[in-house]
């Protein structure tokens, strides 16, 4: 936020883009198989099956409908 910056947008980027970031981060963590480090008693699969508090990008879900099919490389690994 700048000196004379209108407050209208100040840090709204962080607030709003945070939703997108969370969506990306969770996918990246899953792809890289980075194990959870919070809440050791939480079972990841059980936790992931529950709806998130903040529904991430509902409008994007249709666009990502086929993502599961495309996550694996279209060309065979060499």
């Amino acid at each position, binding site marked *: *936020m*700048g*000196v*004379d*910056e*209108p*407050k*209208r*947008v*100040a*840090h*709204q*980027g*962080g*607030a*709003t*883009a*945070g*939703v*997108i*970031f*969370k*969506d*990306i*981060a*969770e*996918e*990246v*963590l899953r*792809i*890289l198989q*980075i*194990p*959870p*480090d*919070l*809440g*050791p008693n*939480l079972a*990841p699969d059980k*936790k992931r099956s529950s709806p*998130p508090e*903040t529904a991430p*990008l509902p*409008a*994007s879900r249709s*666009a*990502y409908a086929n*993502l599961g099919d*495309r*996550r*694996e*490389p*279209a*060309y065979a*690994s*060499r």
Partner: protein
Amino acid sequence: MNKPPAFRCTLVFGWLIGLSFVALALWLYRIQVVKHDHYRAIVNRMHDQRTVRAARRGDILDRRGVVLATSLPVRTICADPSLIFTQRVAVATTIAPLLGMEVADVLEKLKPVVRTNAVGDPFTNQFVVLKRRVPQEVWTQVRSAMANLDLGVKARKGSGLSYALTALRTRAIFAQEGHVRQYPEQRLGAHVIGYTLPTEINTEFGTVHAEHGVTGIEAVLEQALAGAIGWKGDGADLPARPGLNVVLTLDARVQRVVEERIAWGREHFDAASVFAVIVRPATGEILAMASAPSLDPANPGDPDAGQVNHVVGSLFEPGSTFKIVTIAAALEAGLLRLEERVNCHNGRWFYGGRYLHDYKGYGLLSFEEVLVKSSNIGTAQAALRLGPERLYHAITNFGFGSRTQIMLPSERAGVISHPRDWSGISITLIPIGHEVMTTPLQMAMAMAALGNGGVLMRPMLVDRLEDQNGQLVVRYSPVAVRRVLSESTAATMLRALRGVASQEGTARKAELELHSLAGKTGTSEKFFGALTSPASTTPRSTPSFPPKSRSFASWWAWTNPNGWPTRAGRPPA
């Protein structure tokens, strides 16, 4: 004594014969010795023009072997009109359908053109290109059709006509080797991979059609990717040396996720551009780098394509994400403690003749809260403790103002002026990301340094070069640029930055359920509607996976979004 007339005649005749042999010997000497190179070149052009061998351009792959760019063999179909002459119609009607061309167009190209050479002798053109980028199987069909060409002419074996017909059927239509570049994953990683354009390489033995890297990895590693052409002729057979394969550090799966999300975000927020980069802090490996709008490397001239890789090629004021540099430097210098409280003057502080504002009015905040709540006033006071020289040193030490030396073209260094050029309030503006210009990659690497125990790494985009058999030729290693913070300072900063993605912080919606997240948000008014820099995950309770090797840092931004919500809480459009 007079010789008999018959003897004189014999003598003269003998001299004439002798002189003829001398003249013949001189002529042969001229041809064989004096003009040897000249005639050798002519012969080479006549016989070796069709035997230049194109080198296959190397592939570009992601870290797991997914092919992102490859080359497929194609042919350039050519003709020698001097061998066709009156049979143009027969040849054109035979090959035009196979090539997908109009007969009239082929006829026009086969039309012999007679010119005169340097010594005034007429000659017919011997080379014309009929069609480029023809698949190998089509060329096989053309060659077969020409070999079986029925001209309704019977020629006696060994006759001149027989020789001409054989030349027409076997040599009048010929093909040059070449390759066409293809991108199996379409736009994936386009700004990193770059693209090529077709080019012709003219050699002594003819022309070969190749692809030349214009930007991205295709351009930077052109020499390794291109290989070396070969040739066959004059009894020699030198095969082409294929180019090397380039294995990137990118992970196609991560790249795809990032590209799809930022494309969605750009559309959703009506932003001019969105870009992101994801880095492994411990090695500097780039796992994903994307800019939207993207481009199609197979059609780079598309006017709607985003030609600029904003991650390395654009400069922005980093806004509040830059606060980490000042707070970390002051912490490193022992000039503050994160739990120490500072007066934030209820969001309005007069310094240097101007008011500095905060997003919200805060009174006393700890420096940890200054980071979490992104207080400009608190950060500016940390900068005043450092002073201009030490602040400038910290900024340049983090790599700002210098190229990261990533293996990509058109990287920009950024702008940070020397303290002697600062105004009276620069010491309060630079720490909050104004009066300084950085690339997104520089911000990502600075954030990654926090996740790497304070060591700044050089961004690494290429993992290795391999030959066509997958044998290792060159392996690139991670390069530590320098230590910018002590390990304890880096750890302290990460702990503090975890609060940003919490209910108290500015990126509360980014809070993850199962992983800790350290980050910093920011907004810069002139060049951004907003930018966000959620940073690195740092697993704390997984001793078998050291945090440094199992985390990632990222940085992304939106430029000029029109769809941000207002403070009244309007949801994104």
